[in-house]
């Protein structure tokens, strides 16, 4: 019945638009004129920092040089920032580390979030309470989460205490000051904090899977895993891509919790791109170089995201 109603509606609007072409032509021009200032403003806000960044990245400019950024062209350096970047092993290590963290954290958050969301599709005692508890990590201020995990992973901290109890002998690993484990601790903190977001988004997706289609599939003999693969996943494709995109972008910028836990150390053991940029900006003050790094990363991320979006559009059309 709803479908009939839509067909009717479409035909009605169709009629209106044929009689209204003349008005529409003028209307379009007027609309453009009315929104032009706003569009220019948005363009300016979005593009200006980028252009400025691009400009600075082509120079050796630093705020200590005593000249304004608009005069930075005097310090033009023939793309030296970019050629330096290509051979900056600390940058490439940080990038690799960031990618590693992302490749472990985001899938872990996705799988945990999905598993929890599936559990929450069923009814069980205390569901509401668990639901509220589930969301707490997401609401903790990252800096606070950082201090929390800093405490947890001390050599005499609760994590080691629990492990000691489990294995029955003293265990006193200095998680955050051993290069091998600091990154693990950092990733655990990230997974703890951001699994709830995945959970929340994926739960919304699961709830949106039409129940009657699931029933129809069951009645046709599909097992749970067949239903999951043939109905749930295709229906959730868009929302999964959105959830993953959000987390990939966010995780790539991982900084606050991590910085409080390890400061990027020991050494450079947990130095991700954000930490590296921060250090170069704050300590070395070579802003032209930072601008170049930031631009490269922005372009890389943009490519990643637009790939995801094109996948999403393809999914929608299919």
């Amino acid at each position, binding site marked *: 019945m709803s*479908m009939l109603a839509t067909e009717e509606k479409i035909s009605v609007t169709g009629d209106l638009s044929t009689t209204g072409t003349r008005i529409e032509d003028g209307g379009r021009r007027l609309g453009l004129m009315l929104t032009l200032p706003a569009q220019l403003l948005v363009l300016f806000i979005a593009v200006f920092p980028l252009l400025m960044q691009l400009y600075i990245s082509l120079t050796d400019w630093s705020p200590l040089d005593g000249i304004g950024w608009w005069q930075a062209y005097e310090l033009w350096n023939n793309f030296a920032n970019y050629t330096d970047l290509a051979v900056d092993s600390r940058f490439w290590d940080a990038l690799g580390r960031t990618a590693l963290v992302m490749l472990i954290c985001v899938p872990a958050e996705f799988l945990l979030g999905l598993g929890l969301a599936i559990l929450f599709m069923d009814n069980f005692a205390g569901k509401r309470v668990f639901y509220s508890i589930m969301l707490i990590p997401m609401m903790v201020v990252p800096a606070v989460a950082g201090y929390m995990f800093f405490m947890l992973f001390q050599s005499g901290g609760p994590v080691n205490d629990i492990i000691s109890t489990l294995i029955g002998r003293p265990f006193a690993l200095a998680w955050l000051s051993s290069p091998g484990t600091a990154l693990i601790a950092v990733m655990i903190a990230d997974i703890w904090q951001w699994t709830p977001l995945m959970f929340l988004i994926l739960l919304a997706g699961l709830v949106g899977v039409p129940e*009657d*289609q699931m*029933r129809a*599939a069951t*009645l*046709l*003999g599909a*097992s749970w895993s067949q239903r999951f693969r043939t*109905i749930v996943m295709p229906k959730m494709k868009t929302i999964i891509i959105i959830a993953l995109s959000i987390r990939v972008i966010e995780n790539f910028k991982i900084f606050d919790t991590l910085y409080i836990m390890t400061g990027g150390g020991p050494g450079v053991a947990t130095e991700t791109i954000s930490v590296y940029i921060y250090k170069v900006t704050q300590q070395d003050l070579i802003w032209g170089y930072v601008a170049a790094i930031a631009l490269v990363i922005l372009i890389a991320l943009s490519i990643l995201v637009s790939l995801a979006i094109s996948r999403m559009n393809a999914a929608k059309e299919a």
Partner: protein
Amino acid sequence: MTAIHLENLVKRFGAFTALKTMDLEIRDGEFMALLGPSGCGKSTTMNMIAGMEQPSEGRITFDGRDMNGVAMGRRGVGFVFQNYAIFTHMNVYDNLAYGLKVRGTPASEIDRRVKAMADFLQLTPMLDKPSAKLSVNILQRLAIGRSAIVEPAIFLLDEPLSNVDAAFRAVMRTELKHLQRQFRQTMVYVTHDQLEAMTMADRIAVMDHGVLQQVGTPLEVYNDPVNLFVADFIGSPGMNLLKGVLADSDRGLVADLGALGITAPIDPALSATARKHGIREVVYGFRPERVVLAGAGQGIAMPVTFIERIGARTVVHFGDGEQRVKAVFDNDVAVQTGETVHVAVEPGFARLFDAATGVAIREV
């Protein structure tokens, strides 16, 4: 090809009882219609047969096998949902193929059977179309095809035609009957449209307010309704029901139709039952199709209030205060609004109901 037996089936949703002690035997290969007004528990009954809902009491057996605890995917039941539940993210072909795919049927056989089914339901030109944008008529056929392709022993259809347009409904009534003859499944068909039930079903189970009222062939429920609800619900228009009081006369027991000022003689067999149960207040019923025009001084004299033409049929409304009568004639009829006409009931077609309980008075 399975006999379904519902035994003392009860379904409660919290404090609300949606289905009250339903007993129904659906025979192997039978086309059974569950007919009743909206909200009477038809879908609830179907959902329990399919295993989507669990009975609060009683049990369901398929060929004697207790279905309690048998998962819905393992009951061998095909189900056509009221809103079709087509997989909107798949095209027509994949929808049809779904049941075979999940069973691990070889691809070549899937292809053969999908094409055969598409051919049968005239879906061939649509096979590659995404199913999200199809018209209701096509969705409806697709839903039937998707269930039928796995050749379920039991086929359940929940108001499959309620959303489609009238012309297509008429076509589908024939097609569905044809489909069932071809596959010989046991078919349970839920509808609130008595025309669908009357034209397609081998037997009809009439329900109201969660209570099974009567089970019988279309003609049985039409000719011999067990109570006032069925008498009124079946037929369009429903049975004429006039209040009366039984009285003795020199012609035997008669129903005094009060304001109409006439008495209708009662069949001796029914009189015996009425006497035995001491029934006095009755409802005198007869089908509008069984009303004939009578000569002056005969039958019931009533003014014509309204004449309605429905296609080739003419429905004449007679009215006299509380007591109203409708008559259906196959053709035009020579009466005019305002005119007082004598009408009579064809001999043998009057029915008698106990006014207190609404139950039909039958021969014993």
